[in-house]
């Protein structure tokens, strides 16, 4: 191990890689939330419940496919670069959010909903003002799972040219420079743990005090 290599990896290479990685994560998670939360709301409506099971089963199957296989399958279909990587990651980050949205919305007790409709709220207002606020902690926990997952598989996205921290790790493995490995892997781990803690804290803050479970 040499300090010079370490410094080079940390100050010359890491900032760009970290930026690319953050971009992949932020774009993927934003898209995933935009797709899955409405999908979850839609599937939890009583009218469309029968689609719910089918969709969940399909997403479950997709989830079982290992990340590296998804990345490898994305290359011949979508090509090289950041966009294909994001699409590949998107596929797998949908399930936790959709599942938790459905679980959260179905978990709202029917007494509360009845009380709301008894007060003369319309279905739409019940959804926005009663169901979603009560379900948000569970939805956030799904978003947390998805985020950690995207950070993790995001390191593999460098294989299809998306850049990110995986570049440092792969470079370190092929040149056999432990400094690169430590910087790339360490930053990846820190990023995942940091995001997990942050969303966890958000979850805790957003839960109404009466609903907190010890």
């Amino acid at each position, binding site marked *: 191990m040499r300090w010079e290599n370490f410094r080079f990896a940390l100050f010359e290479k890491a900032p760009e890689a970290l930026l690319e990685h953050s971009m992949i994560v932020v774009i993927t998670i934003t898209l995933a939330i935009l797709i899955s939360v409405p999908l979850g709301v839609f599937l939890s409506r009583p009218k469309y419940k029968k689609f719910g099971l089918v969709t969940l089963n399909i997403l479950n*199957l997709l989830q*079982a496919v290992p990340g590296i*296989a998804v990345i490898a399958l994305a290359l011949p279909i979508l090509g090289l670069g950041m966009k294909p990587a994001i699409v590949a990651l998107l596929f797998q980050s949908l399930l936790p959010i959709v599942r938790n949205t459905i679980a959260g919305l179905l978990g709202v007790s029917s007494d509360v909903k009845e009380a709301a409709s008894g007060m003369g709220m319309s279905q739409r207002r019940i959804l926005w003002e009663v169901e979603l606020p009560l379900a948000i902690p569970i939805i956030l926990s799904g978003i947390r799972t998805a985020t950690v997952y995207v950070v*993790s598989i*995001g390191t593999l996205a460098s294989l299809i040219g998306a850049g990110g*921290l995986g570049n440092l790790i792969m470079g370190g493995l092929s040149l056999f420079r432990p400094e690169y490995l430590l910087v790339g892997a360490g930053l990846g*781990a820190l990023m995942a743990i940091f995001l997990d803690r942050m969303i966890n804290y958000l979850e805790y803050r957003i839960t109404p005090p009466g609903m907190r479970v010890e």
Partner: protein
Amino acid sequence: MTLTDFVSFLVKNTKTIMEYSENHFTLVLLAVGISLLIWVPVGLLLTKSDKWAARVLALANTIFCIPSLSMFAILVTIPMFGLGRKSALLALVLYAMMPLIRSVYDGVKNVDRNVIEAARGMGMSTKRILVEILVPLGMPIIFAGFRITVVMTTGIAAIATYIGERNLGRFIQEGLVRSNTPMMVTGALIISIIAIGLDTILGVIEKRIVPKGLRVSR
């Protein structure tokens, strides 16, 4: 990339595929076996102390967050482990910590208190309560954790090819390097099919294993 490419690749490389699959399965089996031996007793122990349970679960959660490629890369830099099976095994066992401990802990903790009290009232010893009440009643949750562990380990084991394991991940690695699409797609498809297959089979067993009275319609 057509179907014929795919089939001809399969036919030409049957021997290599068998060799890699064998390596893959032995690694997964070893990792899951060791994980079960270590983490199930730990999970059972943790049900005795809530304070330690919170600490260990937090640690397991943190480890679980670490990207798999990062985990392998960090272990490789530790002189004792280096490239090869030892690092791969340790990483897989560490990843299995979260699902296994959590499911054993949750499973045992979820057992109805009244049942335990009834057992104690009938004069069962703590050991018998554990073996005859807690574990069987907690089994559905424990098995769900086991299922997640197996499927996850199969997937992550493929990434261990980057630290020198010769397993199914190697098709993806070499296919990418040589831009040999049939090779890469074959590797990816074989791993996916194995993972989905395992998930489905274990899912069926999971449904069977639940005592009739405990079945919840989902």
